[in-house]
Every structure is written in structure tokens, then in C-alpha cells.
């Protein structure tokens, strides 16, 4: 099915027990978009990614990925790459960087997967991420930025149309954040739709095409210069925060939302 959008959220409601995580969220993500989703802790940002992947049950509403409901046809998720929060990965399992990347191809043959067949492809993707020299190192021995790029490599090895990223800049220094952001920019330039959840807008300020402010409900969505207004920020975070402008770029000065 051909659609004008990559993902559509249609009056999406999610609840965990008595707690409502997402409340009537409706918007489309067009092909080739670079959408940054921001909001305070508990705003439902990660839940939004999880409904896209059909990982949490929907209470009400509908999600479409490339025109297909992922809850009914999980096969569509082969066209979606997912980069989870690094903290959710168990680094104590002794896997090498290349093994982690190859995991992205497992959906091709889940039970009799032959890693050897795809090694060349994995090396190629690691090379694109500037990581070919650490391919055979243990994942746990890599730096934070390298780990993040390995997880991105895992997400893109199957050549997905959509890339979902959950807090990719968490606990990264400036240099590593820039490297990761540039990798995302390159992927977006190749036509991949990117939906990125973050607290830190600065690394992608140059590249984000649209921003969505979320606090269980969708507060605002659009170009960063239109969305980052003191009113929207107050509605989202409950605090008034200044917005810094530099040319066409704008960044809200939010401080550390994790400390709130």
C-alpha cells in the first residue's frame, strides 16, 4: 500500500493499569521526516515508540506503519529499525560488536540463522558508522558513543524505511553526541524517516525537520522555530524556559529534565 506518511497515530490511547500514558495522540509522520519527540519524564515518549512497534497494548485508537496496522501484521516491522535506550541492553552478555549488528538480520531466519553468511554486510555497516576497527571487540568494552553507533548499525543493517531511536544521546559527551547525530543526518539524507525521542535537542538542532512536544497529550508539532514557544514549553514541562536562537536554529534552555 502506498501512503504519503511513514507512521500515522490516530487517536492513540495507552494505559498501564490506572495510569494513562498516552491520551488521544493524533499526528502523521511523512516520509523522509526527521521528527524529534520531546517532553518531561513520564510523558509517554518511549511509549509512543513502543506503540509504533506494537510492543504495548493499545487501549483506544489505531497506529499505522507504512499503511499497515503493526498489531495485526507484525511483518511490517521488518521495515522499521529500532534503537532502544542503551541502559535496556544487557552488556554482561559476552557479545562482540559484530554479533550485535548481525542481530538486526535475525528476522530473516529466526531459528537457523547463519551469522557467517552476513559478516561482510555487517562489516560494511560498521564501516559506515566508523566502527570497523572495533568489530571484533566485546560490546561491553566499547565507549558510550561506540555502543550507541553499534546499536544504530544493528537497526539499519536490514535497510529499514523508518528508524526509531529512544534517547540516543543519553550519557554521551559532546563529541560522541555529534558523531551519532551526524550518522542520523546521513541516514535521513538517504531517505530514511527518523523518529527520535530525546531530552537533549542540541545535538540534532541542525538536522531536525520537525519537533513534537508531548506530555501524555500532544502539545504541539511542527518546525522547531514554531513549536519552541514559551507557552508550549510551559504547557509541556510546567516551567517557563527561554529559547535560544542562532540563525535558523533554536534550542529551548530546559536544563536537566531528569533532575526535575
Amino acid at each position, binding site marked *: 500500500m502506498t501512503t504519503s506518511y511513514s507512521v500515522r497515530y490516530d487517536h492513540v490511547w495507552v494505559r498501564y493499569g490506572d495510569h494513562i500514558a498516552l491520551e488521544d495522540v493524533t499526528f502523521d509522520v511523512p516520509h523522509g521526516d526527521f521528527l524529534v519527540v520531546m517532553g518531561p519524564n513520564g510523558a509517554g515518549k518511549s511509549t509512543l515508540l513502543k506503540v509504533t*512497534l506494537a*510492543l504495548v497494548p493499545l487501549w483506544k485508537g489505531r497506529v499505522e506503519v507504512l499503511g499497515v496496522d503493526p498489531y495485526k501484521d*507484525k511483518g511490517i*516491522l521488518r521495515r*522499521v529499525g*529500532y534503537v*532502544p535506550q542503551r541502559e*535496556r*541492553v*544487557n552488556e*554482561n*552478555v*559476552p*557479545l562482540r560488536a559484530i*554479533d*550485535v549488528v548481525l*542481530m*538486526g538480520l*535475525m*528476522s530473516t531466519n*529466526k*531459528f537457523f*540463522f547463519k*551469522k557467517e553468511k552476513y559478516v561482510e554486510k555487517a562489516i560494511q555497516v560498521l564501516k559506515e558508522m566508523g566502527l570497523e576497527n572495533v568489530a571484533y571487540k566485546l560490546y*561491553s*568494552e566499547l565507549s558510550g558513543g561506540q555502543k550507541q553507533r553499534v546499536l544504530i548499525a*544493528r537497526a539499519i543493517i536490514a535497510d529499514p524505511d523508518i528508524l526509531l531511536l529512544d534517547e540516543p544521546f543519553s550519557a554521551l559527551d559532546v563529541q560522541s553526541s555529534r558523531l551519532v547525530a551526524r550518522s542520523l543526518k546521513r541516514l535521513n539524507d538517504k531517505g530514511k524517516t527518523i523518529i527520535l525521542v530525546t531530552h537533549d535537542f542540541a545535538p540534532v538542532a541542525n538536522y531536525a525537520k520537525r519537533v513534537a512536544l508531548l506530555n501524555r497529550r500532544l502539545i504541539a508539532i511542527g518546525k522547531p522555530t514554531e513549536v519552541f514557544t514559551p507557552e508550549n514549553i510551559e504547557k509541556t514541562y510546567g516551567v517557563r524556559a527561554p529559547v535560544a536562537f542562532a540563525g535558523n536554529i533554536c534550542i529551548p534552555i530546559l536544563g536537566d529534565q531528569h533532575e526535575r
Partner: protein
Amino acid sequence: MPVTSVFPYWVTNMNVDYLASSIIIFALTLYLSKYLRATKSTFIIPSSADLAVSISLLSILLLSKVSTLFILIMSVILSAILVKVGQTSHAPLLIKVIGYSTALLIIPYISYEMYSYVTSLVTGFLYLTPETVSLLIVDAILLLIYLIFDIQIAYSFFDKEFSEIIGLKPSLWVSLVLFGAVIVGFTMTFMYGFLIAHILALSATNIKNRKLGIISFTVFTSLLIMNIPAALAVALGSVLATVIDKMLLLWKGSNLKVSKVRKAVVRKALGVPGV
């Protein structure tokens, strides 16, 4: 004319079936420990050994004799509990305490025969019983499944969420590993006894180099089993295998060519301060 064995004396005297079974159990414990360590669930093997004793004691009281079927059914129920409680040690401990307390308080009033059975559960059997043979078959099948599906298991433990998305069914693999941990704890308890099962499990879960671990365990246990009781030989063999593994790590750690990161990992693994 006396019948002579086709095997030399040192082979016939070394309790080959017991040794071979021990190597399977040791290899399985090493395999499981790789993942249990990763989820900080190393306690699960010793706790399943505790549970095996508890269940046996309770089944003595309830059924007059230990029924293999009863033990296996109970193991499935208890493994489900262990999977549910996952990485917390409180629930297995609680079950253990209830099991021991109830059984030990009542057992002396029943018979001396049962008391001696309990004693052998603690000190270990020196032969394969029908129960241990049944459990060994399950162990061997599990080891085979783990080796065939090693990638699926590794990925499921590494990133459960991503595995779910790509349709790997991570809960299946994680549950299978936890179930294996319970079964191997049971087998060890019935083969070696409660105390030695603990020693073997705790030694094996600390070994990093699996291949070397299996080789050194085989060599040491083979030598020891000719001179000391089999269960004790297994315990000492596992401890010596751990010592060799630690010495190797220490040697690697002291090698100047080793990278700083790896050195830090080795120091951390050995519990050496300054990491």
C-alpha cells in the same frame, strides 16, 4: 580363572559413568552460568539445589517414598515460580526455609530409614539412581538445545525488547535457560548431595573460560575419582578448575600488552580494588 576387564585398572577404578555424567552436568552449569551471571541470577542454581532437597523431604512425608514423577511435576511448578520471581532471592529462600523446617521437624518421628535418606541427600549418593538417570537425560537434551540455539539465547538475554520486535520469542529462551538451571540444580543434588551441589554450582558459575574449565575439570576429577569418593572428587575438581581459570585471568591481567579496558575488566572480575 578370574574374569579380567578389557580396560586397564585405572579406568575400571574411576567410575566412568559417574565421571561422564559429571562432565555433562559441569558443562551445562558452565553454559547456564554465562547467562545467569549476565542477569545476576547466579543464585538460582544453588537455590534449585535447596529446592530439590525441600521437595524430596516433603515428598517423603507426603508419599512415603520419593517419586520421580512427583519431583519432576514439582520442579516444573517451582521453575515457573522461579521464572516469575526472576532475580530476587527472597521467594526461593522462603520456599526453602518452609520446606526444610517442616520436613526436618517431622522426619525424626517417622523412621530411621527416612532419616538416613535425608542424610544421603546432604552428603551425596555415590551411584546413579533411576531419578538421576531421568534427570540426566533431561540435562543432556537441554544442553543440546542450548548449543543449537545459542545465538537465539544470547540475543534474547542481550536485548529482550529488540528480540521481541524481530520475533525471536525471548521469553521462551529465557524461561528455558531458567528451567535448565532448576533441573541442573536438581540433578546435582541427587547425584552429589546438597552441600557438594552448592560447591560445584558456585565454582562453575565463576568460571569465565568455558573450554578450559571443562578440560581442567575433566582432568582433575578423573585423577581424584580414583582415590577419593566420587562426589568429593567432583567438588574438588570444580574448585581446582576455578583456581586454574582465575590464575589464567590473573596472568592475562598482569600482561603489559593487555589493553587498559581489558585489564579493568579482569581486575573487576577478580574483585581486585582500583578499578
